[in-house]
């Protein structure tokens, strides 16, 4: 896209890449944020993302309706969330280990069921052409925004408000920060966490739909390049705040576009390292902001603790 524009193509390429590529990050990180706020980690969202991408594409192909595809991606996420929420809350079961097993199971199931959908092309989601004012085709192409992206952008402030001002949001934060206090309030920790994990997985599934029904807009086994795992880092980067998840998703999406954009003008000497820049950035920020003397600001208190036996 950037060839015709020369050097101007670099910023345009990055903007276009940000708008296209950040939706999966946004959905998965909001989902992971919701999950972690309740005190559990779900590393398995990578598998959920793949499962969402596959079911969205498959259902869109079979029914001809991409929106039904989006819905089925969310439902697939709900089911995966239920499995993770149930297993990771059993006594002595480690949520990190369950997450990795769910990545294997989820990607296996998605590749298995998705095999017939690699060849055919499914109806894609409609896009909003915000670039219609421009004469230049690259600008028009860059500003084809997915409605899913806009929905995600809208969810971020709603979730922020939800955590801050609603009774349910407070319950989730209480369960994540101080399970004992929540138990004393008569809250079922198990149920709150299960529902949070399921809702988070629902969002991740929709993130998968954005991969297969908008950009790159096809189904293949390589469609998610670790975005589900990256989102875990992103949530830490965003300090468990939904609005910052939005900014971080834009940043990560943009960082992913730097490598290809520079490559298009002939700079490809550090292509792979540019692609790894989000990880390096997150690690650096963690090194700077963490300290042995105090815990990370914003981290849910019960995160990473082992399950208290429910016997």
């Amino acid at each position: 896209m950037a060839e015709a524009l020369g050097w101007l193509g670099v910023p345009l390429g990055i903007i276009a890449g940000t708008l296209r590529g950040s939706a999966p990050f946004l959905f998965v990180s909001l989902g992971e944020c919701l999950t972690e706020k309740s005190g559990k980690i779900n590393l398995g969202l990578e598998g959920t993302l793949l499962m969402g991408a596959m079911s969205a594409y498959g259902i869109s192909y079979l029914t001809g309706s991409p929106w039904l595809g989006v819905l089925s991606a969310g439902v697939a996420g709900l089911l995966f969330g239920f499995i993770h929420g149930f297993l990771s809350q059993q006594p002595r079961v480690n949520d990190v280990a369950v997450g990795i097993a769910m990545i294997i199971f989820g990607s296996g199931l998605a590749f298995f069921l998705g095999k017939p959908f690699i060849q055919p092309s499914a109806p894609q989601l409609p896009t909003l052409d915000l670039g219609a004012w421009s004469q230049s085709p690259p600008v028009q192409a860059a500003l084809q925004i997915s409605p899913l992206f806009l929905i995600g952008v809208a969810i971020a402030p709603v979730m922020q408000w939800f955590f801050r001002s609603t009774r349910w949001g407070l319950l989730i934060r209480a369960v994540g920060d101080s399970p004992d206090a929540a138990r004393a309030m008569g809250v079922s920790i198990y149920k709150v966490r299960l529902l949070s994990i399921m809702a988070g997985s629902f969002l991740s599934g929709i993130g998968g739909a954005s991969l297969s029904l908008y950009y790159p807009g096809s189904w293949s086994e390589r469609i998610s390049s670790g975005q589900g795992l990256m989102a875990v880092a992103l949530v830490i980067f965003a300090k468990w705040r939904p609005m910052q998840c939005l900014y971080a998703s834009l940043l990560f999406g943009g960082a992913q576009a730097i490598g290809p954009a520079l490559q298009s003008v002939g700079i490809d000497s550090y292509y792979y390292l540019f692609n790894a820049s989000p990880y390096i950035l997150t690690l650096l920020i963690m090194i700077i902001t963490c300290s042995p003397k105090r815990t990370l600001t914003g981290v849910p208190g019960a995160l990473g603790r082992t399950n208290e036996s429910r016997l």
Partner: protein
Amino acid sequence: MMQMQSWRKTLEFICIPLGAILAALFAFGIFCAFAGGNPFGVYYSIYRAAFGSWSAFQNTLIRASPLMLSALCTILPARLGLVIIGNEGAIVLGGLGAVAVGLAIQGGAPIIVQLGMALGGMAVGGLWIALVGILRHYRAVNETISSLLMNYIAIALLNQLVEGPMRDPSSLNKPSSYPIADVNMLGNLPGMRVHYGLLFGIIACILAYILIQRTTFGFAARMAGGNLRAAKIAGLPVGKLTIAICFLGGACAGLAGMVEVAAVHGRANISLNSNYGYGGVLVAFVARQNPLAAILVSIMLGGILASAGILQRSHGLPDATALVFQGLVFLSILYSDSLYGRFDFFKERAIATSEV
């Protein structure tokens, strides 16, 4: 862990994992039936491909050996209560380090070159995970997250180096480093098709077991893992312990990378990134962080990996079927961990048995 256990406890430790595997097989059978396969035919094929003949079993062992080494990268730091999942990165960089050393001293006697490659791989892998330990101890950076991030950084480094400074110009489709000369490659064990990596894996697991259970170092690590504050009050050098045990774990994964390079691929390229890292994390958890159990679990997972091809060839099932099976087995075994102590049959009956 080594104290005398009654036969009921022992039986529990055998029955629960076995039951979990049977449950996973049952669920997988239903899955295969839905997919149009004959479950019993599929079971038999998996068995045949994994353990059915000496030749098949050797395939299993070839896949099991990097898993054993990789699992130690999670098992050793787990003694300190750390959950490290940076195995993939340590394997990738270990392989890269091994190639770098192997190419630098390729004129030497083969045994020297092999030793150099092993040391190179272990040093690079060890330093990589030691960095996780350093960040954990001095900056309180969560080790799970930092090691996960470092996996991606390691893979990017690998890609960058094999496409840039280390690239063999003749490798067109799949950018790779220059190859290791055939004489310097790690050979096979006598009379087998399995390379020396298997021996490395088994020895490393046994050494890890001795280190944890039979040495002061292991005792100190277990103590610090059990109660950090008590260990600090007792004057244990927690920082040094953390970094040392992370280094050892990383060195094992680095050795896995060296084995993959020096016995399988012959050069460093993206094939090094073949999920033995995450497989190793799972082996560690399924083996309940016990190095000896990790040998058996690695062989089991190696068998599942080895059966992927045959499911495709003789049952018309996609090769992802093995991935589904692997996922089911691990989910089921992880769940089974919560079942210990739930069955009355396995409970101690001190009074009743003493009267009999």
